């Protein structure tokens, strides 16, 4: 025990949890406690009488001796750590990260310096690890290949990465409302922020007018949850323009392929439908030409009649095909004007009778004004009545009715008492070239398809049902003329 320290003082220092070294004014060690022995690996006897530099890493000896001398000139209690990391030297040469607190002490006219040393290796390592981890995280966020941003609960921007600054400008510290977004976009993002602050992960996609072209941006916003509270919102914007373009192309391509396939199928059907009358014409014509001498006059006349009948059928088919394709291309103009649906119905039935055809009609028609192409609607009704006539027993009636359907539509029905159509075929009869199994006679297979196209061009619909009592009822429904328009027009 040094003569410079009293027994009591030494006992107190011995009991301290910190490592303690006491030096005289020249830096000669006069006392170390047990904790210092443990920390530096020396025995007390190894240290006492040596300069304090024994405990300082060699590369710091010069600086340390100088600092020690200047401190000795103006001693005061202070921490040595302020500003720099300190290191001690273990007996085995390893460096120990330390914190030192210096206290000058006058005892018996002698000045000594007490240094309390604490091993802070672990604390420094932890702080360093935290610093590195934060730096890594920051670098990761900064270098995300898409904009990243965060807002606090009060609505101020707390963070933007590089891409975000490039895309939107630097708005850290500003509120969403103050960064000059277009009104509609601001409203959408406020809503997104509101939902995220309520705890929801929000996915949102929008088209942004960004320079030369529209970009499709997918935004994901999520709540920042700290404990049980949402303290802000963070989010990313991902540009999905190319993906969406590719998807749209894919959809278009599929639609084009489907349309091509349908066109091929239709072409196959059309050519088959065209070839059938040609087969008859060619057959009978060559039959008459090759075997004419052996055929009776009646047979010859019969063949020529059939040839003509099929030529007419062929002509009708070509007409219907043209009408159909014009309707589909939207090239058949509708001559729309206010007209009474009841009048169109009566005109159609009159035309049927003028053609010398016999049929009992039961008509119940109320006067309803519509905006329609009267000629086209008459074409539809005449087609429906022809079908009803064709499939009915000659003595059976055909019922035609015009009635309002709700406030805005008028329904016109043509009902026969013929064999009807199987319920699973009721929709199919409006398709091109659909043939009802076992149907007599031969139309072009396009009549009802054309009817449907014409009615659809009137913003209407057409359907077939099997009414109670059998037969078939075809009903078309189109909008009535608006009351106000009606008064103005008439």
């Amino acid at each position, binding site marked *: 025990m040094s003569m410079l320290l009293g027994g009591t003082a030494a006992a107190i220092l011995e009991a301290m949890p910190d490592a303690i070294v006491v030096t005289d004014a020249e830096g000669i060690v006069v006392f170390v406690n047990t904790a210092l022995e443990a920390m530096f690996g020396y025995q007390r006897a190894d240290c006492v009488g040596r300069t304090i530099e024994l405990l300082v890493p060699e590369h710091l000896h010069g600086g340390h001796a100088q600092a020690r001398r200047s401190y000795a000139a103006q001693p005061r209690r202070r921490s040595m750590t302020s500003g720099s990391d300190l290191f001690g030297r273990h007996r085995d040469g390893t460096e120990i990260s330390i914190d030192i607190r210096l206290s000058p002490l006058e005892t018996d006219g002698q000045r000594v310096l007490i240094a309390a040393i604490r091993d802070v290796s672990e604390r420094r390592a932890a702080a360093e690890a935290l610093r590195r981890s934060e730096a890594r995280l920051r670098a990761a966020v900064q270098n995300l290949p898409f904009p990243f941003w965060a807002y606090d609960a009060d609505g101020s921007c707390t963070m933007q990465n590089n891409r975000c600054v490039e895309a939107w400008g630097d708005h850290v510290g500003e509120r969403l409302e103050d960064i000059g977004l277009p009104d509609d976009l601001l409203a959408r993002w406020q809503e997104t922020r509101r939902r995220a602050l309520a705890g929801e992960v929000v996915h949102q996609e929008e088209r942004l007018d960004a320079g030369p072209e529209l970009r499709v941006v997918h935004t994901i916003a999520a709540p920042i949850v700290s404990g049980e509270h949402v303290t802000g919102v963070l989010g990313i914007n991902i540009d999905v323009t190319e993906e969406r373009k590719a998807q749209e192309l894919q959809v278009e391509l599929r639609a084009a392929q489907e349309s091509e396939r349908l066109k091929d199928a239709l072409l*196959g059907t059309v050519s088959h439908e065209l070839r*059938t009358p040609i087969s*008859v014409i060619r057959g*009978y014509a060559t039959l008459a030409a*090759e*075997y004419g001498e052996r055929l009776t006059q009646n047979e010859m006349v019969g063949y020529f009649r059939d040839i003509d009948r099929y030529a007419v059928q062929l002509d009708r088919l070509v007409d219907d095909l043209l009408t159909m394709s014009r309707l589909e291309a939207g090239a058949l103009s509708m001559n729309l004007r206010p007209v009474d649906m009841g009048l169109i119905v009566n005109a159609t039935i009159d035309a049927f009778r003028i053609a010398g055809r016999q049929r009992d009609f039961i008509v119940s028609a109320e006067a309803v004004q519509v905006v329609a192409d009267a000629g086209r609607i008459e074409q539809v009704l005449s087609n429906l009545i022809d079908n009803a006539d064709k499939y009915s027993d000659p003595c059976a009636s055909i019922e035609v009715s015009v009635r309002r359907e709700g406030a805005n539509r008028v329904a016109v029905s043509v009902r026969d008492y013929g064999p009807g159509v199987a319920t699973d075929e009721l929709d199919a009869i409006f398709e091109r070239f659909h043939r009802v199994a076992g149907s007599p006679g031969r139309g072009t297979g396009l009549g009802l398809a054309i009817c449907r196209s014409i009615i659809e061009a009137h913003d209407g619909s057409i359907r077939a049902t099997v009414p109670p009592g059998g037969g078939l009822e075809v009903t078309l429904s189109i909008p009535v003329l608006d009351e106000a328009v009606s008064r103005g027009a008439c």
Partner: protein
Amino acid sequence: MILSSAGEALPPLMKGPPKGQSGRGLVNTGALEGARILVVEDEPQVQDFVSRVLQLEGATVVTASTGSEALARMEDAGPFRVVTLDLCLPDISGWEVLEAIRLIPASAAACAVVVLSAGPGEEIARRSAAMGAGYLAKPTAARALVERLASFIEGCPSAGE
């Protein structure tokens, strides 16, 4: 009179049928003379045309308008030397009829089948050939029908011959 380079007189156009074996048919081999033929065709006028031409060639014709009717005629009115088969029938397809015909023991080997179709030519020709049947595209002229059937019968001798 038109002369060929060999100096022979060519038949003038539209002068009527050339003399066949019987002095009546379009082909002079008489291949169709007395042959029993089943005409399967749902279009009435086409059926009538084919039947009439074959009758004028001296064949005995039985007709059917559906696939099931065709198979019934195979059973109750066969055997037939030739079947002309439309592919587009209201009940079952002509191909199914063809497969069924091949399964009828009495007619499997003996019966020649000629497919008549207005469908896509090459595909049907290939499939017909693969199934041992002849093929004739619709629409067809009377002469082409007779020649095709005659040559098919000659190239496809029945079991009895």
